[in-house]
């Protein structure tokens, strides 16, 4: 009998702290895809908050812990966050060039090669079967790093289309939600105005729910929509897939 393949789930700090349901939804999906899920204990944060703020040394200190933890798994790593997957696959190279040694960089290459964003993984390995009896309309928000750095655009939409009958498209597809890490509180007025632009576009589709692959985008959009009293729900792609393929815990 074949041993059950194992995959490592790197939840990311936002999911860990603010949206644990996304972590569980991701684990369920991976299990339904036939994997056993391990969460490496020592993986904390990819370092992006400090990296985006220009504090590369601090970012490297934190990222190194995660790098070593992920390297040690020796397994494929699934990340339910486009921006964190980008950090690992794209920016860690530069980060450890600036504040690391050759050994770090070797680990980076090793880890980056086996790190996947969730929808990318689902699309590549076969998303679990679900019933399209989910009538609630959905509009997908494309997060910036995922689309521009990882070129992951079709996969989340293809995955959603296997579960959702009514997926609408926003006129401002691909426009930034205005989070940008520290930007959201360094220039809060601009950040909120950017969120409004995206929200107005999303709302104009008439969809009931906004889906994204990044909890940070969801947090930004949800926070602003709630303040405006908008009738929109915000869910992660993992949660949509989880609901469609079995009952969430």
């Amino acid at each position: 009998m074949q041993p059950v393949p194992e995959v490592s789930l790197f939840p990311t700090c936002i999911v860990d702290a603010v949206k644990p349901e996304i972590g569980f939804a991701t684990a369920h999906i991976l299990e339904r895809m036939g994997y056993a899920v391990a969460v490496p204990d020592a993986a904390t944060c990819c370092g992006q908050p400090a990296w985006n703020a220009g504090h590369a040394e601090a970012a490297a200190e934190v990222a190194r812990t995660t790098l070593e933890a992920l390297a040690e798994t020796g397994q494929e790593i699934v990340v339910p966050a486009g921006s964190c997957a980008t950090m690992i696959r794209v920016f860690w190279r530069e980060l450890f060039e600036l504040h690391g040694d050759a050994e770090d960089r070797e680990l980076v290459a090793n880890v980056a090669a086996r790190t996947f964003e969730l929808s990318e993984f689902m699309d590549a390995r076969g998303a679990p079967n679900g019933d399209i009896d989910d009538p609630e309309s959905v509009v997908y928000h494309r997060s910036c790093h995922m689309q521009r750095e990882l070129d992951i655009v079709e996969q989340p939409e293809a995955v959603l289309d296997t579960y959702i009958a009514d997926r609408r498209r926003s006129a401002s597809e691909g426009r930034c939600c205005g989070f940008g890490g520290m930007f959201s509180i360094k220039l809060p007025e601009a950040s909120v105005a950017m969120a409004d632009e995206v929200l107005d576009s999303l709302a104009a589709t008439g969809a009931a729910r906004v889906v994204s692959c990044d909890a940070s985008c969801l947090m930004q959009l949800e926070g602003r929509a709630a303040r405006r009293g908008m009738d929109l729900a915000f869910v992660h792609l993992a949660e949509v897939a989880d609901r469609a393929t079995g009952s969430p815990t």
Partner: protein
Amino acid sequence: MTDKQQFLETVRVALRDGIPPNLLRPLPDTPNDPIEYTPDLSDTLGAFIRSAGDSGAELVGTPDEALDVVVRRVLDTVAPKVVAVSNDPECDGVAETLTSAGIEISAPNDIAATAAADLGITGAVAGIALTGSVVVDAKRAKGRLASLLPKVHLVLLSTRRIVSTPGDVFRKMDDWFPDGLPSNVVLITGPSRSADIELEITEGVHGPQQLLIALVD
């Protein structure tokens, strides 16, 4: 005041250690080959006529018509009092047509006179099918202002001078200007325009408000 050597030395010093390589976005080495465009330019003349029309120019004459007939037709529509005529070979005979129609020709190279002209007539050294552009050479035309100051500009363009793309001119400058460049070569595409106010396109700003093109042999 900085002199040339000091200036260039500063630039050389800046490049002394070369340019740091870009780790994440390494520089490509893609060559600058002639540009491939999607529109079908196999019928060069047809494409030129379409593009010129799209750019807001008006086609007012075809090569099968006598030039004199075309010019008179333009005079009827524009009803100019004064006309400026360039020295381009395509304009040979135009002065006679104007004089016999009783129209005053402005003194060449007289800025005030050209500014007072209602119509400027020039030839063109080339036409470009992709964009509908005409190319005017200041030495060939013996001036620049006939195609610039009057409200209407009539270009007499030989169909034999129409090429497919801007690259057919730019990548062959030595062929087009074997005796060296004139002080001014201008590619003209349609009437002058601006979109500075609310991005709404308005025609006829400082340059001519109308560009008329007569195709000649």
